[in-house]
């Protein structure tokens, strides 16, 4: 089985992968992210980063998880309607700082983990990118 087939089989997903810009993308549901992390661990993939983007018109957030497997990038975009999803910190320790940074920058809560004091602005509130700047 190729890594692409292994991942879709593990996640029981039938939607096809899309590939562009050297990245294989597979949209997953927020509830599947821990299974994604377990699968990528089993394949010995290296966690790269999470890119969080605030969507316009209160549509929520887009979280794009990236892993590297033998020089090929695998991306898992998640459309997050609310402000909470499960942490994968216990499965993949490398996510520690980026989960904390997204928590601080976008006020997204990664449940199931403790946060140390703010990385970026000790004593401040979370969600700086969510604050509206007066015109």
């Amino acid at each position, binding site marked *: 089985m190729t890594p692409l087939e292994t991942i879709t089989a593990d996640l029981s997903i039938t939607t096809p992968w899309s590939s562009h810009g050297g990245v294989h993308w597979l949209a997953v549901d927020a509830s599947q992210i821990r299974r994604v992390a377990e699968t990528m661990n089993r394949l010995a993939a290296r966690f790269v980063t999470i890119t969080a*983007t605030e969507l316009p018109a209160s549509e929520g957030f887009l979280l794009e998880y*990236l892993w590297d497997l033998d020089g090929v990038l695998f991306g898992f975009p998640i459309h997050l309607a609310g402000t909470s999803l499960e942490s994968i910190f216990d499965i993949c320790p*490398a996510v*520690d700082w*980026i989960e904390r940074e997204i928590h601080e920058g976008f006020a997204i809560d990664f449940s199931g983990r403790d946060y140390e004091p703010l990385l970026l602005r000790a004593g401040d509130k979370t969600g700086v990118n969510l604050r509206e700047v007066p015109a």
Partner: protein
Amino acid sequence: MSYRIPMGPYHPALEEPYKLEMFCEGETVCDARLHIGFNFRGIEHLAESRNYIQVIALMERVCGICSNIHTLTLCQAMEQLTGLEPPPRALYIRVIMAELERLHSHILWAGIASKLMGFKTMFMSCFALREKIMDVLQAISGNRVNYAMNRIGGTNRDISDPDDILAAVNKLESEITGTVIPIFTTSATARLRCAGIGVLTHERAIACGVVGPTARASGVTQDIRQAAPYAAYPELDFHVTVESAGDVRARLFVRALEIVQSCRLLRQALTKIPSGPYNTGDAKIAFAAGTAISRAEAPRGEIVYSVSWKENSRTPARVHVRTPTYANMPAVRWMVQGARLADTPLIQASIDPCYSCTDR
């Protein structure tokens, strides 16, 4: 006796502000916590209000050491979104700039590591050599820190005299391989101060997702120049240096041998550089909506840019950069566990940390 020692955010052993909070039993470090963000600048957020020309200048200022690799990676991402392909000459110029930058970064690190080892003569020698590399960078770009070489579709400047640059590189290589590398790899001072300390095991390196020389010193074989080649790297031959000990000395060896490989790449690139244009000229720049991911091997390891654009917009919807130090620095916690307190400045420096990149 148990006690807690904070090192930083402002400390003589740190080049830039961050805090290593260590929990000790006597002289032995049992555990540590890292705190960053003392110089957080919100550059990713600022990028959302800059147009496609301004954003290159902005991201070049994320780091003062590896400024060129930031713009190279960003431009690669924006080239995916615009469909503009740099001409072959531009790809070679990008490799030449990237390898000169790696040389200057590794020599800078060697100087700082020498200072922390108490090897002041070596510190002076390294910084004198670094000046000469910066002279070469200045000869090409006109600048010594932010080179402003990359643009969408190629480079802003040509290398009009590759033979002169080649002569300078050959001279630099003979100086580096005649002094820095033998002293670092054979001297008793370097061996006694570096061997067996700050060990990051292979398993821990993989779990932490560390990159670059820090990962390769722990037996991880990946180098983005070879694993996911970009620019002109597919046409050039080089060897990826890997060590297995995972200690400070292994990290020193990896960087020393990477200097030799950088010189090898520079010689090939300067000899094989094709003639022709070095950018796409005044070609119309139109962005397709979507996200592009680009990565490159910066001196400290893999750098990743994720750039999103909206239809008909002049400004990016999102620019996210994952710098190598951001991936490497959490591993310092594991490196200092069990170490002597006196070794911790050298251990934290052995990952070649860049707080400027981390606090982007």
